[in-house]
């Protein structure tokens, strides 16, 4: 066993101690009042508190306002193509289970163009933390209705109001086999947002966090009724979920004790149309992760490859039969 000197110990502690600045990169170019800023602050704090090594951390995103997220993190980032953040992140995680993998995706990215991957990512249940930045509108392309836009939303593609009921990301996720962690946060309660981000990160499996967020540019007043009336936010507390501070509870009196292991109750809460449920809706730590199921534990080496290849070639080899050849 290697003994560390006191100096080495101190050096290592110092090395593993990170400040907020260690995760900050550039000045975010989101609009003032955009919910993305709140999410960025919560995530940077998470990285610092959990001491995530920046070089061992990857933020993967698709396309849209939210998907600029990795550029503002001083970690590795992958700002890919529209709708495909999840499969890219799955590839990263499969190849490198040692990395901390996060996904930032928007309501267009995840619930529309990338919807197929969303369903399957839940089913794979890889150890990835997914943030759905849901502002109910396409921002970067300048105001088109998204699948989560409330019915009647006036936008450039729905000038007379959108005609379809909004898709509910919570009920969708809770309907998928193998779902293991579903939570909902709102950008205007940073304390709870952080608690949820932390619980999501700590869950081993795919953690899906829908963050209801404001878009001050295209839907400036749409969430006002919820912002102005704390009763319209229902905090979910439980000893196995989140517990809220007294200060917070003074403002948000509408609280409900919900056991996050109860998926049926979670589905009911997710479907409720009056107050926005905020907290952990569902948590099952026992769902196996796809990467664990698939990795054989065999380390690829030249010897292993040679042995494996030769064993296969043996099956198809026609060996020369010298003795018989002579007879012939």
């Amino acid at each position, binding site marked *: 066993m290697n003994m560390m000197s006191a100096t080495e110990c101190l050096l290592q502690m110092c090395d593993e101690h990170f400040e907020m600045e260690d995760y900050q990169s550039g000045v975010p170019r989101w609009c003032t009042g955009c919910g993305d800023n709140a999410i960025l602050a919560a995530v940077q704090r998470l990285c610092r508190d959990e001491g995530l090594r920046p070089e061992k951390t*990857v933020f993967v995103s698709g396309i849209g306002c939210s998907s600029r997220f990795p550029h503002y993190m001083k970690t590795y980032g992958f700002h*890919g193509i529209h709708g495909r953040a999840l499969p890219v992140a799955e590839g990263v995680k499969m*190849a490198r289970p040692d990395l901390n993998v996060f996904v930032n995706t928007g309501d267009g990215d995840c619930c529309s163009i990338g919807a197929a991957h969303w369903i399957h990512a839940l089913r794979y249940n890889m150890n990835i933390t997914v943030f759905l930045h849901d502002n109910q509108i396409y921002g970067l392309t300048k105001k088109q209705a998204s699948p989560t836009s409330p019915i009647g939303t006036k936008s450039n593609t729905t000038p007379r109001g959108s005609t379809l009921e909004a898709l509910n990301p919570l009920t969708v996720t809770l309907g998928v086999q193998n779902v293991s962690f579903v939570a909902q946060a709102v950008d205007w309660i940073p304390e709870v947002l952080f608690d949820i981000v932390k619980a999501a990160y700590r869950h081993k499996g795919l953690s899906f966090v829908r963050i209801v967020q404001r878009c001050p540019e295209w839907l400036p007043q749409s969430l006002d009724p919820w912002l102005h009336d704390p009763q319209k936010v229902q905090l979910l507390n439980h000893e196995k979920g989140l517990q809220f501070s007294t200060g917070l509870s003074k403002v948000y009196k509408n609280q409900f004790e919900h056991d996050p292991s109860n998926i049926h109750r979670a589905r009911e809460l997710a479907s409720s149309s009056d107050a926005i449920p905020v907290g952990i809706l569902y948590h099952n730590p026992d769902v196996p992760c796809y990467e664990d199921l698939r990795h054989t534990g065999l380390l690829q080496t030249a010897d292993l490859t040679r042995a494996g290849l030769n064993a296969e070639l043996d099956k198809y080899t026609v060996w020369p039969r010298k003795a018989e050849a002579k007879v012939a």
Partner: protein
Amino acid sequence: MNQMTTQKSPKQAGTQASAPASPDSVTILKEHIVEIISDSGEGAQKCGQSLGSIAAQMGNGIWTVEIIPAEIRPPARSVAGASGNRIRIGSGYITNGGNETDLVVAFNEQVLLGRVRAKELKPGCIIMMESMWRTHADPKIAASYIETHDRLVEAGYKVYEIPMEQECRTLVSDAKRGKNMFALGMLCYLYSLDLRLGVDQIELAFGKKDRSVVDANVRLLEAGHKWAQANLDFRYRIPAVRATEPQIVVNGNTALALGIMASGMEICAMYPITPATSASHYLSEVFENVGGIVHQAEDEIAACAFAVGASYASKCTVTITSGPGYSLKQEAIGLAVMGEIPLVVVNVQRGGPSTGQPTKYEQGDLMTAIFGSHGDAPKVVMAPATIEDCFYSVITARKIAETFNMVVVVLTDAGLATSQQPFPRPMFNESWIAPPVDQSPVPEGAKPYDWDADTGLARRFIPGQPGGMHTLTGLAHDRDSHVAYDAESNQEAIHFRSLKLAALQKTLKAPAVFGDPKGDLLVVGWGSTKGAIEEAVESLRAEGRKVSSMHLQFLQPLPPGIKEIMQRFKKVMTIEGNWSDRPEDKVIDETNRRYSAVATLLRARYLVDVDCWSEVKGQAIKPATIRRVISEKLKQ
């Protein structure tokens, strides 16, 4: 009672067999093409594959081609339902499927009709038909059989009626399950092949099962051999020299999968699609033995994005697909090009466009491979020409992808995918596999895209490397990987990504010329047509015609020296399995004729008047067809 109505004097049939054919009646052949066809599920494919393996073990050159119906279970006794195998057996090395069939064993007359109508059978060839249908309880079936039989005899085919069902029933209760081995035994006799090798094949196929299964099949094999010996009045031998080195006999898709294993790639992401899937099936079976993983994604886009993500964070990965899947992957391929992420994409081409002909041969995806994905997206494109190439191309592709941080597209086709050809057993070389993932700290001041001014090459930073943190983006970016909208950054980045192709081109060798380095006509081909083109060229050269051929393994970048080679010939033409307009059509002239893919590329790049001939009939182009095309071109 079976009727042996044949052109040749038949012996008495079935159990009333008389003396065996005398050894001196053995006809020595240089080569023969044999087909075994049945309804789907009757085992003709297994019989054909076994025959190929036995012949290969005898030392014969072989090329096998699968005959596959488009449906899993087409109706029994249907013209379109023929399933089986076609084996070209020769004294020497065989490079392609050859021309028409010389001898066919058919389990019913309907599947046979399909082959006759497709003009796959040589006029007057030997047909060995299952005779049970003549006395079938359903008068319509019996009538259909008799009518077909009589017509074939009338048309000059040498028809032998074989009581396969009846003979098998003396040994097993369900002849459907064993007829193929009876046929194999019969063919072993006919081609003077060592029956013990047939027994080995059965051991290989059923060894894992119950001993009684093996024994029953061996009995059927021996019965077929014995019956043929007792009843047939002809016998062939295709002399062979046994190989002195070990050879492996696999099809192109298996070779691809073995190449992936040997290349040191660790992840293959795929989505099921014909005719690529069998490569993934096999890889799924064996990849884990060498620490690899096959991920079946939810769709083609996800498969490519998964591969891109895994490549970005680790070693180069591979995704395997066919035409429609390749179209779907385009955006993710463009992302890999933009982010300079190594990636190998295998496209086992099939007939297109759209769903096209899923099980059929075509070389229609070259332009998509080179020019696919929007914007300027330079990729390397390679095309294996043989089964052996399928193995080694993947290893080369992995290496190029990782050296140049590029996407390498490997274009095989449905023909290579399902054909078998022996090739020298590969000797594993440690240099084939990828080096370990670089996790060393990035030097101070190094940038994620430090493009080399001459080659465009840049070292990539892999997650886990301290100091290398940056965000890779599909947006235009500068050397720091920062999103850059300014004019100069975009110009610079596109310049360097393009330069890498030129840098690679400098490392390539000029293609070899088959035949004299100069002459009247140079035939250019790519991919699986190599064997057929060279066979045709060789036969014409033997007659004194001044024709040579050149085969391109790299299509993007094109290797150096091509123009010089072409200039030494009076005429140049390509022969390809994709579309080109026919000059004889009324509306077609030089201002609107669409040339075949490589012809277009060569004309555009070298300003040489390259002509082309092509067909898209869903089957490998036959050497005889190529011979005719070349002869006509030489006359012009």
